[in-house]
């Protein structure tokens, strides 16, 4: 069977499943309804090592491989996609770029607390008028004595308001275009960092996403991540991992929707028999299973390549495109199978349907993934 998991990977997946089912699942619906951030759960996940999974133990992480991280993320997404995205952002786009591009001092100062779960982190690339079109970034870093001053707006910042350290892209050399973007580690507790009220979102309601205004926010010279002009490189590296993480989240959500649908098809009766005995429902279930299986293999393949340090931009984009589009479809069918109950907030598929929708949008829309894939094919 592909892939053959190691004993360690299975043990980590089981540990994640155990915690997810016993501790995360019970309050998931209530947190969604109240848009309540799961601080306690995130703290416990941090203590257990889930917030910096692939970061070496020396820097506060759990030191496990990338596929283990993906397996854990999938298990957590099955019970609460809001917890999964909070975890994914901290692992994939806060810890990972600092681990890869950070200096020893940056790793001690920022990575250790992020990976051990002491503080949360995030990633500030997107702006009101620029996302995947990174060359259109407007956020400006101006050189001052001892560091840089950041001015501009950042949008859709996950973990904003609840996180502290953010990998932040800003234009240091406007005349150089894309090569004039640099990456910094920004401490959100600094003066001039204004986090707006959390967005009122359709789904992932218990995770926090905010608009950020930077007004002469200071970052020291030592907070520059990589060299000047490396911003796009840092961002794109983070995005590959981020995309695999979101694809894994989508697989988890879709698998849950499928599991719920199977259970419902067995117990709900119409025309004198369980609806699972009607061919229309069977074809839905079969198609859902096929898409979930295929998605999972794409995600694991990308994860294994990233784990081995191979370039995986094409594979990450393919996995994200297929897994998220499939997951949206699978959740739509789950609601259809549940009928009126699927439209009720008392049933989990209603939440899955809302939660899954953003997966084809964030960390690069499906349209962007298609561009990435096509560029790789035609280059």
């Amino acid at each position, binding site marked *: 069977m592909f892939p053959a998991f190691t*004993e*360690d990977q299975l*043990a*980590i997946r089981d*540990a994640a499943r*155990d*915690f997810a089912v016993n*501790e995360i699942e019970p309050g998931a619906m209530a947190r969604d309804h109240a848009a309540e951030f799961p601080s306690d759960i995130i703290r*416990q996940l941090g*203590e*257990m*090592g*889930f917030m910096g*999974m692939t970061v070496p*133990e020396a820097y506060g992480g*759990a*030191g*496990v491989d990338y596929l283990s991280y993906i397996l854990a993320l999938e298990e957590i997404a099955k019970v609460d996609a809001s917890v999964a995205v909070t975890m994914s952002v901290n692992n994939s786009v806060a810890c990972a770029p600092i681990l890869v591009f950070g200096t020893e001092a940056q790793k001690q100062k920022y990575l250790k607390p992020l990976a051990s779960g002491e503080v949360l982190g995030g990633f500030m690339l997107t702006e009101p008028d620029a996302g995947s079109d990174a060359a259109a970034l407007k956020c400006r870093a101006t050189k001052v004595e001892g560091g840089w001053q950041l001015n501009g707006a950042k949008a859709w910042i996950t973990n904003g308001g609840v996180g502290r350290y953010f990998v932040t892209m800003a234009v240091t050399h406007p005349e150089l275009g894309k090569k004039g973007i640099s990456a910094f580690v920004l401490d959100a507790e600094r003066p001039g960092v204004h986090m707006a009220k959390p967005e009122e979102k359709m789904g992932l309601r218990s995770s926090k996403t905010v608009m950020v205004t930077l007004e002469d926010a200071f970052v020291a010279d030592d907070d520059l991540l990589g060299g000047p002009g490396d911003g796009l490189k840092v961002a794109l590296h983070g995005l590959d991992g981020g995309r695999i993480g979101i694809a894994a989240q989508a697989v988890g959500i879709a698998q849950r929707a499928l599991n719920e649908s199977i259970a419902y098809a067995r117990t709900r009766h119409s025309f004198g028999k369980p609806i699972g005995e009607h061919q229309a429902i069977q074809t839905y279930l079969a198609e859902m299973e096929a898409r979930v299986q295929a998605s999972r293999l794409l995600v694991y393949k990308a994860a294994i390549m990233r784990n081995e340090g191979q370039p995986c931009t094409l594979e990450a984009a393919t996995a994200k495109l297929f897994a998220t589009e499939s997951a949206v479809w699978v959740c739509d069918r789950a609601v259809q199978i549940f009928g009126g109950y699927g439209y009720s907030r008392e049933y989990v598929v209603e939440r899955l349907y809302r939660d899954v929708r953003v997966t084809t949008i964030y960390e690069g829309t499906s349209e962007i993934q298609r561009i990435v894939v096509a560029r790789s094919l035609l280059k």
Partner: protein
Amino acid sequence: MKILVALKQVPDTETKVKVAADGKSLDPADVKWITSTYDEYALEEALRLKESKGAEVTVVSLGGDSVKDVLRNALALGADAAVLLKSDASDPLAVATALAAYAKDKGFDLIFAGNKGMGGDNASVGPMLAELLGIAQANVVVKFEVTDAGFRAEREIEGGTEVVEGALPAVITAQKGLNEPRYASLKGIMAAKKKTIEEVEATAPAGATAVIALVLPAARPEGRKLDGDAAAQAAALLNALKDEAKVF
């Protein structure tokens, strides 16, 4: 301080148990095995003492190779050493005797165990172990502390709480409420894989008791639908309550 924690592997409470063909044991097929919940409280208390006062925690369990899962999990949670006493004994006195033979002369200051094994519910091994070792015991404990003189424990008793003090060494059996057991960290899980589980042939005597039959509760009879109009149904219900259920 040296602490021993006795663990028992039991079927998950969510397992649908089936009686084996011999009519006196569980059919092991499809059974998911877990650490008895009361033993989890026992282990957690030992780990908290290790963190607050410093202690070396050894976990021990009787059984075959499958019991290694329970021991491995305890190592992942933070136990320092694990011992498998190889034996197929299940009678409480035989188990207590084997544990006593292992624990004797090893200098344990405290021995923790669950107040009973989930499922078997004998509540015997802990007290027997203390008697066989000739040391103090406190059972069904919901609060525990080590004091200068020994220990202080709060026990759950009918309608109240009993506070007992005693000298170490002692056997303490844990009750729900003693603490909230932790989850293993990923670091712990990885580290546990590298630790070895010591295997010892247990010296267990023949059991003092033997299970002669294991019977599942009788299946609930199917419900009965009463026919007719409301008056006829009421009359039928009245008869059934009076003549069959003999409610009055």
